[in-house]
């Protein structure tokens, strides 16, 4: 990691507790880079995190951080922002934390459009508790609670957030780290509720059950399956199978939503 960014880390807490190859570290790196690019004074920054693997990210940041209760990171962040509106508040949550345990808080935080930036670490699974199915587990994927493959449809998180009223909605993967950094940066710049879905790979609880291979294979999978939303919109229906859009969903460069 660049020396200029080291100051953002509580280096005594490292090595972190995430598994070898876990994408959460890459998201953390992108977040630090985005904060560095924004050149915000650190006393104007507050980071709130929920529970789960992703929630541990706040513990590694040498900033004013708050490790909140499960699913309630956004509610604590709402309190922080209302108590001190001058603060830039970034909220770190996992997919289960944001959309299941804290799903209600997510939609209402988006509806209120308070100036918060939510970064959702989507690893498609409940990693810390042993690989249970989450609301963002892709249909057909195997988890410890769906050993035959999940038959449920996952949430479409960007559209869920947009439908609830978020003014800035974006998605990028850990492989597309530059895009992810830029989206987090612009999400923080956005005045109002911003949601950035960071697609990460969990080699331990998700990749292993789904025979997706090593962390390198996981990153290659992200590279091959995610396409820029503008390109995705231009694809014929049959070519969209197996692809996922990423990039800035809203405010959208295109007036239409993908199907």
């Amino acid at each position, binding site marked *: 990691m*660049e020396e200029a960014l080291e*100051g953002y880390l509580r280096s005594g807490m490292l090595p972190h507790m995430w598994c*070898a*190859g876990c994408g959460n570290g890459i998201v953390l790196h992108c977040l630090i880079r985005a904060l560095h690019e924004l050149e915000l004074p650190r006393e104007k920054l507050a980071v709130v995190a929920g529970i789960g693997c992703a929630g541990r990210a706040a513990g590694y940041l040498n900033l004013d951080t708050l490790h909140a209760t499960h699913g309630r990171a956004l509610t604590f962040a709402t309190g922080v922002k209302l108590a001190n509106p001058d603060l830039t508040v970034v909220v770190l949550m996992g997919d289960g934390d944001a959309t299941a345990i804290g799903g209600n808080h997510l939609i209402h935080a988006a509806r209120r459009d308070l100036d918060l930036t939510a970064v959702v670490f989507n690893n498609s699974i409940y990693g810390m508790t042993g690989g249970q199915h989450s609301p963002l587990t892709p249909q057909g994927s195997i988890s410890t609670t769906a050993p035959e493959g999940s038959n449920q449809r996952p949430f479409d998180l960007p559209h869920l957030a947009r439908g609830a009223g978020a003014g800035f909605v974006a998605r990028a993967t850990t492989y597309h780290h530059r895009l992810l950094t830029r989206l987090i940066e612009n999400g923080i710049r956005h005045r109002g509720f911003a949601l950035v879905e960071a697609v990460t790979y969990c080699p331990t609880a998700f990749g292993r059950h789904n025979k997706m291979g090593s*962390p390198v294979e996981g990153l290659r999978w992200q590279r091959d399956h995610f396409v820029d939303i503008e390109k995705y919109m231009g694809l014929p229906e049959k070519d969209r199978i197996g692809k996922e859009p990423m990039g800035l969903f809203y405010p959208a460069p295109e007036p239409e939503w993908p199907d």
Partner: protein
Amino acid sequence: MAGRAAPWPAAVCGYTGGGEGPVGGALVRVDEKRCKGCGICVGLCPRRVFVPDERGKVRVGRPEECVACGLCDSLCPDLAITVEPRGKGRKEAPAGAAAV
């Protein structure tokens, strides 16, 4: 790049303090304490600079190949790799950011 490569110090290459060496386009270091040996840098480096280690970690095995693209730094989930391109200015951290 290879022509400019300086001799690789054995003590560092053998990773007694991470892995460090003056190299073609950049100085590449692996923080041994942070590295968990996931193999992302080994698998994705376009110049195959990194080699897996018998201790389950990674070392900078072919430093002279480095072209300072910085992919390993950005994709290292353990925040363990530093790539310092030669002769390029760096952006400083905001005031107070360096205090731990």
